[in-house]
């Protein structure tokens, strides 16, 4: 309920900005006498999918010997097929529950595939390829059913096949990789995702997937470089790359008026400059106060840049 909006509706009807008939429903929604629980139902559906997949995962781990691998594989496979079959039939008129059932079927199918691979090893020493198969299957389903969730899972599965965890890269303050293999793989995945996003956008084939691919791509690139900054060796090179990526991202995002990506670019550039500063301070044996001063300066620069950008946006609007 919002009493200000209720009063505004009455006021706008008096001023004839709103028609009294149309205003009745608006007033009901504002006064709280009519509310929508659509989002709550969606969250409940998502929770259901999460709990079922979690339960299936525990079943696979704990009850393998008692139930038997064939029985587990068949049971999960049947459940997955049932969900996907239902989704296939409902695709022409998707309902509130459609996306959840599709997601559940896809996740169960992927879990079943992984389970079959581990228990029966059809791929032998090439077992990681099951992640690529899962990524391709997710992508096929995403394109068939126009699902952004499955498209994002397809990209993260592809990254997982290359040994990259999006969650790990997206939290660069965590553990630092002990080799540059992860950095290279993350950068390759990131560039591939960006290229895929551009391709989808320019070809107008599922152009709505472009933001998903672009966001995941940039997060991989920026996150992997930020994570690598924690290693002393070649820090200047990595900091330069991060600053460059941040500037390029901010530049293109500004042209596209994609403010979230612009903010990511500015933040990445600031971290890159911070990397240079850390290296410089270490070389001149500067004290802790020098680090603090750099942080203050960088933070101030970021805030000024964002406020100026906002002002420019308002001016151009």
């Amino acid at each position, binding site marked *: 309920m919002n009493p200000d909006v209720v009063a505004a509706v009455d006021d706008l009807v008096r001023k004839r900005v709103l028609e009294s008939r149309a205003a009745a429903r608006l007033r009901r929604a504002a006064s709280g006498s009519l509310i929508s629980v*659509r989002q709550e139902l969606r969250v409940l559906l998502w929770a*259901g999918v999460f*709990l079922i997949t979690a339960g299936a995962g525990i079943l696979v781990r704990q009850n393998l010997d008692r139930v038997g691998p064939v029985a587990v594989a068949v049971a999960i496979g049947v459940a997955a097929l049932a969900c996907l079959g239902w989704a296939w039939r409902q695709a022409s008129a998707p309902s509130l529950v459609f996306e959840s059932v599709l997601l559940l079927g896809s996740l169960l199918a992927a879990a079943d595939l992984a*389970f079959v691979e581990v228990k029966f090893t059809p791929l032998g020493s090439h077992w990681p390829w099951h992640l690529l198969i899962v990524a391709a299957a997710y992508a096929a389903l995403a394109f068939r059913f126009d699902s952004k969730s499955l498209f994002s899972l397809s990209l993260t599965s592809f990254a997982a096949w290359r040994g990259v*965890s999006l969650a790990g890269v997206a939290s660069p303050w965590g553990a630092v990789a002990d080799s540059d293999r992860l950095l290279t793989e993350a950068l390759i995945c990131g560039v591939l995702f960006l290229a895929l996003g551009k391709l989808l956008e320019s070809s107008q084939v599922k152009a709505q997937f472009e933001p998903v691919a672009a966001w995941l791509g940039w997060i991989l690139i920026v996150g992997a470089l930020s994570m690598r900054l924690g290693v002393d060796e070649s820090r200047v090179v990595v900091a330069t790359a991060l600053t460059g990526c941040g500037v390029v991202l901010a530049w293109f995002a500004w042209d596209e008026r994609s403010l979230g990506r612009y903010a*990511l670019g500015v*933040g990445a550039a*600031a971290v890159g400059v911070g990397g240079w500063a850390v290296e410089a301070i270490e070389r001149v044996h500067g004290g802790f106060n020098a680090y603090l001063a750099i942080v203050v300066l960088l933070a101030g620069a970021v*805030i000024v840049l*964002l406020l100026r950008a906002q002002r420019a946006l308002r001016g151009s609007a």
Partner: protein
Amino acid sequence: MRADVARAERHRAVRIAAEGWRRAGAIDDATVLAIASAYPDDRVRLGRGFRVLAGFAALVGGGAMSALAASLLASGGAETLFALGLTLVFAAATEIQTGRLRLAQAGAEYATAILAATCAALAWFSLFTSVSVVEGAVGLAAACALAAWRWGYALFAALAAAFVLVSTSQGAMGRSVWAVSGVVAFPLMLPMARSARWSPAHRRCLDAAALVFLVGAYLAINVYGLDHRWIEGFGNGGTAAPGAWARGAAIAGTILAPPLVLVAAAHFRDRGLLAAGALFTAASLLTLRHYHPVGPWWFLLALGGVACLAIAVAVGRWLAAGPGRERFGITADPLFGDHRRVEMAQAAATIVAMSPGPRVTPEGSFEGGGGRSGGGGATGGA
């Protein structure tokens, strides 16, 4: 709260509602423009990405500036004065941003408000050689309540309510105070949170504080919390086992609280109560499972998941079958709200919770799905 800020907040609420009406096709662009000119918003507001980055930068930069000032200026024995000085600096920065600079939802003013409250709390702590739980909680509650009253941020109101509860946790009656405060505070605060006399920001503060008191009440009456002396544990006391009557009452409370809150949510059509009711239901079911292990975890999780799906489908269909696709003023159809935030959060949660883990070295062992590597994500090595 400043009158101009409160007025801008009220106008902002109307403009947001108008945007929702336009998205739903209830009004056209011309009407939106007419509403925007009738309810002008003179604040400088940043988009979500800008806001998060600006807030983070201000928080980190302000923290670094405080540490730098402390290392250059602070001397032993003057900690209180120094912390008070920083409190004034950050409070003044917040006032200038929300006043002369007319910033709102810009991130930076929120960050300086957090820093002001933190420094005030540090000043309070520096007055004591050894701070007790009550002393600490009272100081923090006062700082947060003052910040919530002045700047209208719901986070401060929620923290103030939480610290009030912590400050009352000492003593024999602590648990009873928690239970009673939830029962009393919610009916008192809910009408205030819906009154036009309060600004939208203060209404959000009241909502947040009321929810914290309600959660506190549930924690007080939950039988697992009673058995483990959670509330009494704040003072490292209360190791004595609860009496039989107290356990009986807690068992009844654990069972009855979720449906009561859900009924209240439906009656008052309150989303906060609905979320609290769902949370309490999950907590009560987990409590039940703890004392009565009726089945294996995988079965209960799958059962819970199926129940969630079934309830969502059944409720959706039941509401859609009602006259005008609604029942008791509740509908499953989209109205005028902005659903993008929930959809984005859901998409992010899907990626985080359901993405497969990265491939591991060949000698790694199989990890079934479920949760993080679930469904999609079993990882393993042969």
